[in-house]
């Protein structure tokens, strides 16, 4: 199942992916052997380079970010029933023991997406791939959350909101058209559904005065409902168009499942009473029996992120998988 990770330039995409890599290294090698992470070589090289840099207290360099043209990775979750089968059966190809989600990261300020938004024509393969996504993860950069209307971050956030809202409408329109096409051709498809998720990136940079203005306390709540309310209180102010288009999907015949919210932060070294000079350095954890020397980041949120998508991977309608299989066969079929 194709999934899209959307973020603006400098919204923390590379750091997010580096931290996700870090989290899966720890999580995927734990005692529960039911999660797999895979990435194409080019993506893996970059993600591991970011991870190594973070272990050396450095944020991803600009050069490294420029190297990323297309970054993707796969989450694999052991299917419940297959997980109970004997090992030698699970090893057979026909069993397909893992539900997989294929994530691709997209820069919404990139040339391809900008062209698509201006023209509405999905001619480039990257856009065609993007529109097929069933899961949409939107990165929202908390460092740009300001209530000072005459500032550049305020305007950038307004623009980002417009771009993401337009992309969501494009997803919904595409899904609805596909649904109608299948219905017209005699297939009885399930109503279209998109699974949205938000990652509040650089959450540690969210200013106290902004929280106070919005009537929110410091620190993200743990309770599921309170988390949603807290995140939505932020998003209603900073990305209202995006939120309204998620809510409005149903009236257009495309259900957008309840959005899920995650935090991303990585602790940086601060010197009391002094402004940091140059690039901030990442704080690393001390060495413990379960590991150490790792960047100090919102690990639990990343585990929550991985686990959230397990539920979704298990919910994928069969026809999505069938359609994927059909497409894959069509691609390898000789002309």
């Amino acid at each position: 199942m194709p999934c899209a990770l959307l973020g603006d330039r400098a919204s923390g995409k590379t750091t997010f992916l580096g931290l996700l890599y870090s989290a899966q290294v720890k999580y995927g090698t734990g005692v529960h052997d039911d999660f797999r992470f895979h990435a194409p070589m080019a993506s893996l090289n970059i993600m591991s380079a970011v991870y190594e840099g973070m272990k050396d207290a450095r944020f991803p360099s600009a050069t490294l970010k420029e190297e990323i043209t297309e970054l993707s990775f796969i989450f694999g979750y052991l299917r419940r029933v297959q997980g109970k089968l004997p090992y030698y059966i699970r090893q057979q190809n026909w069993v397909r023991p893992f539900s997989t989600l294929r994530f691709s990261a997209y820069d919404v300020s990139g040339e391809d997406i900008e062209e698509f938004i201006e023209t509405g024509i999905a001619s480039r393969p990257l856009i065609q791939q993007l529109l097929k996504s069933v899961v949409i993860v939107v990165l929202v950069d908390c460092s740009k959350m300001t209530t000072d209307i005459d500032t550049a971050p305020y305007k950038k956030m307004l623009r980002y909101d417009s771009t993401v809202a337009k992309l969501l409408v494009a997803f919904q329109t595409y899904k609805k058209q596909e649904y109608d096409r299948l219905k017209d051709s005699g297939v009885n498809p399930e109503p279209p559904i998109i699974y949205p998720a938000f990652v509040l990136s650089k959450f540690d940079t969210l200013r106290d005065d902004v929280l106070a203005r919005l009537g929110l306390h410091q620190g993200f709540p743990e309770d599921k409902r309170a988390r949603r309310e807290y995140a939505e209180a932020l998003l209603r102010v900073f990305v209202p168009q995006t939120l309204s288009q998620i809510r409005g999907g149903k009236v257009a015949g495309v259900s957008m499942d309840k959005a899920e919210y995650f935090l991303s932060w990585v602790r940086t070294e601060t010197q009391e009473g002094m402004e940091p000079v140059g690039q901030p350095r990442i704080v690393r954890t001390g060495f413990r029996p379960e590991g150490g020397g790792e960047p100090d980041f919102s690990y639990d949120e990343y585990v929550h992120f991985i686990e959230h998508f397990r539920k979704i991977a298990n919910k994928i309608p069969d026809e999505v998988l069938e359609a994927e299989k059909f497409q894959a066969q069509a691609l390898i079929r000789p002309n």
Partner: protein
Amino acid sequence: MLQAAILGDVASGKTTFLGLLYATLVRSGSDKEDALRFHASYESLEEVTTLFQQLMSGGFPDAPIKEGLHEMSFTLGLRKARRGRFRLGSTKWNADASTSVHFTLPGSLGEERPGFIQGSTIGTGPWRDVLDADALILLADSTKLAPKGDTPERGPMATYDGQVDALFSAIQRWRSRSGHEFLHPVFLLSKFDSVSPEVLKAADLEPEPPELAQSDARAAYASALLEPNLPHTLATLRGKSRGRLRFGEPAYFFSWVRRDAKASGGQEKIQLRRMENGGWEPDYPREEYLALLEHLADIAAETKD
């Protein structure tokens, strides 16, 4: 799909109106508890999101937006009680119970002289949509309202009045054999915060229009202001039906957006106000826009029947 055409004189606030309508949809459809849901069409979004950014930054629509924005379409879902008030409830949102609305913004009647107004029945482009519209949203620029007692033929809205009346004739000709029988007029008194106190005094009216729930009082209030300024238009609406064309009961709404008095550099800025959730929005009468959306949904329901 409900076809609504927005008509107004030059600089009467047509683009601002459409931007504020979109802002109302965004603001009133982003919370789980909200009684409204909307889904914008992709084709409308390029211009309208740019307009939204301008309004939310305190700017009035710029020239490229005014030139480029000619339509907006969306699907609208409302949770509505029978007596016209929104209610919160557990109604499930679905596409079958929603309404599609398409707004056409063809240009200013004062600038464009489409052929059909001058006698030809051939309409092209967005003006063609005006001929087939279910609802006409007629903007009356409140800064141009003349006091009761002045000669209407020489008033600032005399030309506009004649143009709207000519448009009604054109629509009547267009629909003489086919097309919808009903046309629903909606008057929007724009820039109402700048209406001259003299005008209000001459009509013996309060500065604030009656509340939304008092529909008769609102109609009387608006008519008292429009009668001396759009006499031909109102007479046509009150007159007997023209051939097959029948007019619905006119509805009246009031719009304004406060200007920032502190803005420097000679450029007019919109005054933004704090919302309860901590964000900003233009200082405008959101309830009027919600009521207008509800009214359009009612027309759509009638049209469907």
